[in-house]
């Protein structure tokens, strides 16, 4: 029986709790009376994934079965979401399984013109190894050498292809395969907005306007909803409540903390991506994009919803080592701030977990480590743009156009593994929406210069952070700690 998420009130028997501090794993003692939101345990997974997929394809919602849509000689395009903005890869990945089942039906229907596109939108291109792990060896080897398996290039999409990927615009049927493990800003949206985000042109994604090419396009969505087993089985104790850890788990935690002290970046990568993840699929839905999106959202909320009463004065957030946009890379300060304020702050179904004018205390070292391969424009954004101003209106007016048109960023995005030049601006707008509503943002254990550059404060310990914010929230604020990952969605009642 999967236990639902719950809210723990810290008393003197509560042990120190795990807080993710970037690559470090802290054990923090919270003040008495603080609330801790624990995520729910996983819902039961599908016994037979392949049968689940086949049933979904045969009985879709709001659409005809896939077999009737597949006609010989048609142009079929299968798009799938990328390595960023999704759960860590597993071998075999659920998307690969779904695509295999679709291809088996397509082969039976006599379709030869099939293309596979990774809908990465303005995220970075996926490497060969990532695509191979994602799709499985069979699908990868069948399509990659012929050039039928490609990453999406947002700069190649333009007005003449309806602001969509050219191959998608000329297809008879687009099958969109997605893995859903949340509803926040770190996950590719479901339904038609997800198609626009993943396969649209730069102008369409930037402005949020629906691409014209989507009007006449036949889209068949397939979404697999994941459970809450975020951690691989080797460290699955990190997803359980601290007072339920066995002795071996405590020993493993000691090992993990030592490893993260000795080699923070490497151990972070290993824990999050190298060991894979323990996710299982709990539901597969297929059919019309809106109906599938609604069904997936219902399931995700069912999995992750935790009822909390009222809004807090102080919200404490741990930032995990690997964020959505730093898969296979390092987490720079801008990404860490986005993870706390764009994603953690918005891990809610309705109202925010902290009141307007309240404080967010986040944990991350904010060390000035940038990946020049993956985030070249963020390096310049942090060095040149942020010292001038942190106001999103000023950034949009003065700097965004330069970054959008820069030929070097464009070259790196189109041919290398870089995020688009506008990527840091998108992150900044999302986190600014939260900063505008908050009073103070304090990073514990962070580099002071980085925090100041971002426009936030830095403190050495939680007690110091609470001291700093005492001016705005008082000496005895209501403190709430969101104990993620695994994901939890606060429903404020």
């Amino acid at each position, binding site marked *: 029986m999967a236990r639902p998420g719950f809210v723990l009130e810290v008393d003197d028997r509560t042990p120190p709790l795990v807080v993710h501090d970037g690559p470090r794993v802290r054990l923090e003692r919270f003040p008495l009376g603080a609330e801790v939101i624990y995520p729910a345990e996983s819902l039961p997974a599908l016994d*037979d994934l*392949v049968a689940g997929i086949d049933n979904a394809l045969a009985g879709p919602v709001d659409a005809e079965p896939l077999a009737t849509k597949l006609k010989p000689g048609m142009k079929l395009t299968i798009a799938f979401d990328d390595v960023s903005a999704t759960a860590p890869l597993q071998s*075999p990945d659920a998307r690969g399984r779904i695509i295999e089942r679709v*291809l*088996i039906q397509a*082969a039976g229907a*006599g379709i*030869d013109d*099939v293309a596979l596109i990774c809908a990465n939108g303005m995220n970075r291109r996926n490497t060969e190894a990532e695509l191979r792990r994602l799709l*499985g*060896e*069979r*699908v990868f*080897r*069948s*399509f*990659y*050498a*012929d050039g039928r398996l490609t990453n999406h290039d947002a700069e190649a999409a333009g007005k003449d292809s309806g602001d969509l990927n050219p191959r998608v615009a000329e297809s008879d049927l687009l099958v969109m395969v997605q893995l859903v493990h949340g509803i926040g800003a770190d996950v590719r949206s479901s339904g038609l907005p997800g198609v626009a985000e993943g396969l649209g042109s730069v102008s369409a994604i930037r402005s949020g306007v629906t691409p014209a090419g989507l009007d006449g396009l036949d889209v068949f969505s397939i979404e697999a909803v994941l459970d809450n087993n975020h951690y691989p089985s080797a460290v699955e104790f990190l997803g359980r409540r601290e007072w339920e850890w066995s002795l071996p788990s405590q020993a493993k935690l000691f090992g993990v903390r030592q490893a993260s002290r000795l080699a923070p970046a490497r151990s972070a990568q290993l824990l999050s991506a190298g060991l894979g993840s323990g996710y299982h699929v709990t539901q597969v839905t297929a059919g019309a994009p809106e109906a599938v999106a609604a069904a997936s959202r219902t399931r995700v909320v069912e999995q992750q919803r935790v009822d909390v009463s009222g809004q807090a004065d102080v919200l404490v957030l741990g930032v995990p080592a690997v964020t959505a946009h730093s898969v296979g890379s390092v987490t720079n300060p801008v990404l860490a701030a986005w993870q706390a304020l764009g994603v953690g702050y918005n891990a809610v179904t309705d109202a925010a977990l902290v009141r307007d004018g309240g404080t967010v205390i986040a944990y991350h070292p904010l060390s000035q480590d940038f990946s020049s391969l993956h985030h070249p424009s963020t390096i310049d954004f942090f060095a040149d743009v942020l010292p001038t101003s942190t106001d999103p209106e000023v950034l949009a007016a003065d700097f965004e156009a330069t970054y959008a048109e820069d030929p070097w960023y464009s070259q790196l995005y189109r041919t290398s593994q870089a995020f688009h030049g506008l990527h840091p601006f998108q992150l900044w707008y999302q986190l600014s929406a939260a900063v505008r509503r908050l009073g103070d943002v304090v990073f514990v254990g962070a580099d002071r210069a980085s925090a100041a550059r971002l426009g936030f404060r830095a403190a050495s310990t939680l007690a110091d952070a609470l001291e700093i914010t005492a001016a705005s929230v008082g000496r005895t604020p209501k403190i709430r700690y969101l104990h993620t990952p695994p994901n939890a969605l606060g429903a404020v009642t």
Partner: protein
Amino acid sequence: MKSPLRIIDAVRQAVQTATVRPLLAAQLQLDVGDRTAVEELAGPVIIVSNHASRLDLGVLQAALPARHRRRTGATVGSGRGLDPRLLLKAGRNVVIFPEGCLSTDGVAGGFGTDAAQLAIEQHVPVLPVGIRGTFAAMPQGRTWSFGLPFAHNRPRVSVRFGSVLDAEPDETATSFTSRIDDAVRTAIAEDRTTWWQSLRHGHDAATLPPAGSWRRIWDQSQSPRPGGRPRRPRIWRR
């Protein structure tokens, strides 16, 4: 007191783990395809494969997942080994090479109906497997010539599992055999071309040189490259 079968299993496991499998790993480049069809199997199954070399059985056992490897009994053929019916009843998998004898030119010959007959009688499914490259590694009449362990140019052997086949009710052994034959050839074609090509065109996707021609032996005696890979031009010739 363990049953004799369990003792035989344990001894065979120990011998294989100590000698055969490390040797195969060091001397061959074993490329195993998608194993989910095998991993999901619950009961005993008849494993059917093409037979091009004496390496086939060892390669097949190395390719199976651990749980199934322990349960795979001896090969059936030429009256050797235990009675396959007894093995199946005891929950063991049985390996059968329906060609009956080793292939003379590397390509799978005609399939006998023994495996299909057994599957129909015992109500047991059949797992088709396509093995490619063992003829090039060690054809009939040759003994193994040891190369350096884990060399970069050791022969490649590919093992591809097809989907499990069940006999239809009232199906004859002949028609079931032709289905199994098709499945094994398609599994071989999955490596020779790509999975998608083998789905679309079956084993016709893989065009072989005509039988009896020198080109056939030439083609089969080279270490097989997987389909779907572009020819990369080599700058340095080794």
